């Protein structure tokens, strides 16, 4: 009898944990939606890759620890940092790169990004665009 009672309790706890984990995964999608709304559904697009902007500070560089990794020797290991403020405005900052940071062809140290701006890091070009856009 004790075995049955304990097994039933453990099974109920097991199912409850499973339900809560499933709910957590479902919440993940709704949380992602509200994040995308905050950042105005922006993303960075390369020639053949699209990079999601998933947190408030995004490091771009050649190093393996960079959030957006560009495996190109013309890109510094830690090249630029993308940050977003509460109004969803993205800013890009040069964090001591060797080849410099370019926005729409202009060499900048720090710049506020607008839709369809072209960011130049070494030989690489990334387009700051709205999600699902065609890029350039």
């Amino acid at each position, binding site marked *: 009898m004790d075995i049955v009672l304990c097994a039933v309790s453990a099974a109920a706890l097991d199912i409850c944990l499973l339900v809560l984990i499933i709910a*957590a995964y479902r*919440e993940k999608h709704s949380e992602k939606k509200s994040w995308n709304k905050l950042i105005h559904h922006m993303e960075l697009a390369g020639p053949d890759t699209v990079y999601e902007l998933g*947190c408030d*500070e995004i*490091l771009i560089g050649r190093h393996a620890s960079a959030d957006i990794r560009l495996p190109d020797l013309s890109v510094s290991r830690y090249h630029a940092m993308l940050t977003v403020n509460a109004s969803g405005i993205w800013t890009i900052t040069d964090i*001591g790169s060797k080849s410099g940071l370019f926005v729409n062809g202009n060499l900048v140290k720090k710049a506020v990004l607008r839709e369809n701006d072209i960011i130049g890091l070494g030989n690489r070009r990334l387009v700051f665009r709205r999600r699902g856009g065609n890029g350039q």
Partner: protein
Amino acid sequence: MVNNPIAYLFSCIFVLGAHIAMLANVMLSDGSGGSFVLLAAGVIGLDLVCFTVMPFFRQQSYTIDFMLILVLNMSVIMQSCFGGVGFAVKHWITCIVALGACRVGYLLCRDHKWLEMQKKYYYIGIGVLMLITVLFTGSRSMWINLGENTSIQPSEFIKPLFVLACATSVTEQQKRHRILGFNVVYDNLALFGLTAAICLMQWWCRDLGSLPTFVGIYAAGFLLRICYPKTKFSKKSLVGAGLALALAAVLAVFFAPEYVRERIFSDIWSDTSGNGYQQSKALIAIAEGGWFGKGPTNGFLHEVFAHENDIVFATICEEWGLLFALMTVLALIMMVAVPLISPPRSYFHATMSACVCAAFTVQMALNIFGSCNMIPFTGVTIPFISSGGSSMLVSGLMIGMLSACQSPVFRDPEPFRFNAEAPKRRRRA
């Protein structure tokens, strides 16, 4: 779940279902006396109140809160059945306090930019608490007695402040200064100094059991600092730090006070009435309980000192079985692992989550492995399962911090301005 009431409803039903299954187990094991009715009313009532109040906080995620309610009421049921059904009112009240502390932690820690601006207060707060501990707890204790059966442990309150101190300044890793030929970050030095001071205080107060918790929090914060963009911390330095830590641990074992070395090197089975008393009884109880336990209220471990906190894992194993005890631990692990499912959107919150997870994991490991004689007995509690007011309050606060990481607010910091107009107006009035 804020946009999905069906998921919220299902979560409520299944949490309630898990508690009702446990209560049914208690009822069929020990009959249905007045104490049982009180226990059932307390547990189900607390569940229903929480489910009703929670939506008012408009959180992005409620998963951690549901897991907290699940674990807290499980602990109320388990604590009420040690050696016979009797509603553990004191533990039930501390659970309510923990739930309140969780709300406070959640509301205070949502805005990471505001939290980063309060850095100096964390250091001041820790300093004051350390002073209180040293001055008011006596030379070899961590407790302040407030009267009959009431005491608080001020060092417990250092934990959430220390977590916040570890999480601040992570983004300032680029601001390096050259001192004696070394590149150093002032904040890292300050944090290291603070950690050393806390460790010294723990050593002085003979509470070495809590030391690994603080070291775990610091290690988690330290790793996140290394990982922060552009720290360029060399692998050689990291290996050096690891080796230095290992050497310090070995030296600490050999130069530890006499009573600590006795615990480390003693064989519990040759000293079952002395140093090995609690651990030997705990191991016998785990073995007697087996996979499915003797049934709630049917154990003998409740006669052993600290059965409801220091060796609570063994007490649960004996009465509810190893399977159920492991499931309880799994529930706790899942609660702190929720940030892995939905990672925080800011580096501050990520560091804070890692530090809270480290604290909870180390505490659980110390208690469980200590009960099973795999490491020396430390007397550290399992968060939310063991009884204890200070521990419960602080654990609630820390889980609130974890919950805040799941529903952050991104707000531009407002510069602090001293309102010089107000006193003038008052004078005029």
